[in-house]
């Protein structure tokens, strides 16, 4: 942030930050969007004008202080502006998951008592109209994209353009209105309400104050020395706290430019064009990129394959050390430099990673292979641990002090402690105000003196890094008393490119067992190369060859587990490949793609029983929900396989 800003102390809300940015760096780009194939940019000054017009328009159509504004759509500049506009008016923006079905939206709309909704397009408008009669408070729907909307004659449906036009007229007559409105906001006001996707029960509305988000964003900016020259790509759901910090909070604080992709399908292409310097992605995205690279390398010429293999070996050996500034021999350095020229550079350029200063991953454990792959290429990927209730940052790794299996030391101003049951507790400036209209949940999560229970089990390693093993409530015991951490097993399985999802069972059982979802793309490609014909996921998942492939992965996991004294007993004895992909539309995953254990256990009870009986085949039927909301059933005979169990090897494992 360079020079000290005398007004800094008072700049405690996003509308004030916007006004401040417009004044200080008004001519710099604030946000970009690719429209009709061309990147369009708005400067901070322009953003301020747009936000002011939107705020005035909202006010003219009856948006009051304290009202909630629902925001639904892909990452679009106008939707980010809507957040600031609502905040300037003293309202609560409520970004919602754009791929949620109408019923899910209804719950949030109703619970948040949203009176206005600003949505991206016809699709989202239709969803809101469908549930509008069950959301009595909702009185206006404003759409951004007019396509297909010309025949909507409901008086409460209007275009964002017309709303902003009205706002501009109002502003012309009332100059200074926006600044005066913004000045009414205070740091302790509610800045935003984010509904957690909720692995259990109904989503909860997490209320974060300006202080929460702004201070946390400032700490993050200082930690990683971000400034207005950084570039970020906004492609993760706006309803997710991470996007709110990375693409909104930190952008306003540091003044860097955020780019919105053309569509959700073009993210990888847009990434290449923009070349961000600061990037966030859940492990899944990095995993997909690695899978893609591997698949494309298999199709490359022999020479390229050879080069790739040779230089990736070099990179894996010396890359992470080069990145961490550790000592590397001259020969290795020279080889690595040659590799950078021949392989790593072009590859990073192809992926859009050329300008990365740092990249974060969080949400789940990342596979050590994936982590090492990117770090060896010179991509400074780091892990962080966070939650909505903390305004993201709880722990984050420091440059030069990176380990693949920890989430790093506590972030700035964050206090951490581990409860007796292993649960991680934290206290920080980012701690949420409360859950909206749910005091009971607030009380059971946050103590009176501000400690928040994360629900995650973990411990500190020798260097003071936090290591998360599982959800505290999910850590169980096998009948013989061995500790059973399902997530730990699942993650180990998911680290294989062929396995996209896994669900482990074992609590109060005799042994551990698992459901597996294969990765259709990776396994499909593998099958094609072997001339194995298949008609779709279900067919492929039932092939013996595929079972053999997965069995190899499970065996490797068991081998790994056998080397760890505490976990050796929880090796996976039996597994099966599910006949359908677990899907958020069927309620089996959350919208952030975490497994809902209870739903899975309920729906696949027969299969679980089969895992714990001697049978080899279990006939099943599953309900699937199609994208249009209809349902159908899949029938299949699911096979069950035994995996190799390795004797406990703790004696040899000690290095």
């Amino acid at each position, binding site marked *: 942030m360079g020079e000290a800003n005398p007004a800094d102390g008072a700049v405690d809300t996003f509308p004030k930050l916007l006004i401040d940015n417009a004044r200080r760096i008004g001519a710099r780009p604030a946000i970009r969007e690719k429209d*009709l194939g061309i990147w369009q940019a708005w400067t901070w000054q322009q953003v301020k004008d747009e936000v002011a017009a939107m705020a005035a328009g909202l006010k003219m159509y009856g948006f009051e202080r304290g009202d909630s504004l629902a925001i639904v759509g892909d990452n679009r500049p106008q939707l980010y502006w809507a957040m600031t506009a609502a905040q300037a008016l003293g309202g609560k923006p409520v970004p919602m998951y754009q791929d949620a079905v109408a019923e899910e939206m209804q719950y949030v709309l109703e619970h948040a008592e949203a009176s206005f909704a600003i949505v991206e397009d016809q699709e989202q408008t239709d969803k809101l109209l469908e549930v509008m009669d069950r959301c009595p408070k909702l009185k206006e729907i404003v759409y951004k994209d007019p396509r297909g909307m010309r025949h909507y004659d409901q008086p409460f449906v209007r275009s964002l353009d017309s709303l902003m036009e009205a706002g501009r007229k109002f502003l012309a007559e009332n100059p200074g209105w926006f600044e005066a409105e913004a000045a009414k906001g205070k740091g302790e006001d509610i800045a935003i309400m984010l509904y957690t996707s909720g692995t259990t029960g109904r989503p909860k509305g997490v209320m974060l104050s300006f202080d929460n988000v702004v201070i946390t964003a400032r700490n993050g900016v200082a930690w990683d020395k971000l400034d207005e020259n950084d570039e970020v790509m906004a492609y993760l759901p706006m309803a997710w706290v991470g996007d709110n910090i990375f693409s909104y909070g930190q952008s306003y604080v540091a003044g860097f430019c955020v780019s919105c992709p053309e569509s959700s399908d073009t993210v990888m*292409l847009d990434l290449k064009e923009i070349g961000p310097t600061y990037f966030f992605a859940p492990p899944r995205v990095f995993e997909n990129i690695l899978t893609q690279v591997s698949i494309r390398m298999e199709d490359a010429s022999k020479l390229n394959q050879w080069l790739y293999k040779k230089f990736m070996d070099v990179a894996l050996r010396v890359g992470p050390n080069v990145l961490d500034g550790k000592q590397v021999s001259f020969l290795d350095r020279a080889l690595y430099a040659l590799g950078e020229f021949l392989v790593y550079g072009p590859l990073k350029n192809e992926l859009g990673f050329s300008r990365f200063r740092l990249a974060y991953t969080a949400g789940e454990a990342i596979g050590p292979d994936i982590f090492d792959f990117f770090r060896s290429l010179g991509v400074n990927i780091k892990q962080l641990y966070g939650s909505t209730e903390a305004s993201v940052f709880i722990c984050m790794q420091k440059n030069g002090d990176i380990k693949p299996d920890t989430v790093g030391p506590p972030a700035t101003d964050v206090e951490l402690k581990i409860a007796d049951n292993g649960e991680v507790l934290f206290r920080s400036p980012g701690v949420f105000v409360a859950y909206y209209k749910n005091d009971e949940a607030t009380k059971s999560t946050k103590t009176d003196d501000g400690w928040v229970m994360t629900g995650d089990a973990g411990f500190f390693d020798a260097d003071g890094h936090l290591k998360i093993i599982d959800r505290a409530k999910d850590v169980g015991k096998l009948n013989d008393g061995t500790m059973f951490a399902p997530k730990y097993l699942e993650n180990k399985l998911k680290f294989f490119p062929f396995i996209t999802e896994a669900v482990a069972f074992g609590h109060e059982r005799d042994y551990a067992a698992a459901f597996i979802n294969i990765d259709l793309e990776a396994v499909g490609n593998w099958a094609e190369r072997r001339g194995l014909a298949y008609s779709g996921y279900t067919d492929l998942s039932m092939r013996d060859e595929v079972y053999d492939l997965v069995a190899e992965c499970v065996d490797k996991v068991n081998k790994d587990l056998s080397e760890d004294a505490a976990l050796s007993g929880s090796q996976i004895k039996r597994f099966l490949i599910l006949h359908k992909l677990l899907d958020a539309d069927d309620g089996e995953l959350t919208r952030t793609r975490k497994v809902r254990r209870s739903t899975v256990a309920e729906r696949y009870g027969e299969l679980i029983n089969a895992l714990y009986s001697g049978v080899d085949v279990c006939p099943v039927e599953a309900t699937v929900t199609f994208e249009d909301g209809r349902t159908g059933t899949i029938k299949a005979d699911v096979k069950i396989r035994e995996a190799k169990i390795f004797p406990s090897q703790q004696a040899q494992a000690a290095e």
Partner: protein
Amino acid sequence: MAYERNIGDTILSVDQISLSFGGVKALSNISFAVREHEVFAIIGPNGAGKSSMLNCINGFYHPQEGTITFKGNTRRQVRPSEAARQGIARTFQNIALFNGMSTLDNIMTGRNTKMNKGIFWQALRFGPAEKEEMEHRAVVERVIDFLEIEAIRKTAVGTLPYGLQKRVELGRALAAEPDLLLLDEPMAGMNLEEKQDMCRFILDVNDEFGTTIVLIEHDMGVVMDISDRVVVLDYGKKLAEGTPDEVRTNQDVIDAYLGVSHDDEEA
């Protein structure tokens, strides 16, 4: 969402068309009229003469008898390029794209009839030709946005799945900004989801741009859902014409096309 559509006057009228190839009578004495902003379907069993009819309309075949009047111009013989210039664009039953070219370039070819600068300027891509190309590119980008194919803008068309190729082909036809769009089995070989997408695009084209659409389609569900009027051909003869409901209940049509059924069964 019921609303009044702005159906105008007749834009295309086909009068007593007969077409034969040697001894084979492909079409005999066919007449119908298509009104502006209408979605008009031609249906019939295989070999009924549907594609021949489209080929007559866009000037690929020249009927031996009868006239075709488009936007007030009556003509006996017209070359396809002239038809295109008059504002008729079409897609094909078997996809006819340039496989090695990108989606963008393929759709750009749809602008061909509107490009005025000579090959010399275009080859240099300089001055007026550059300005012209930018204008055309802007139209093409709107089509790409409309059909939601941004992600494949630069992908070679030959590597795309069938459903997307069909969409690119529609894009190329749309790039010509036609008044009349001829679609030859736009949904053949598609899965349900692709069909739904395509239906939505056809209706959106009709709605957003006011384009008149004449389509041939085998999927009766689709035809009945999206068409304003339907003409039924069988062995080169017109069997019936009317709204989907009228056609559906027409006994001749049921016998010839939908299979013999004398109940009031709903399809």
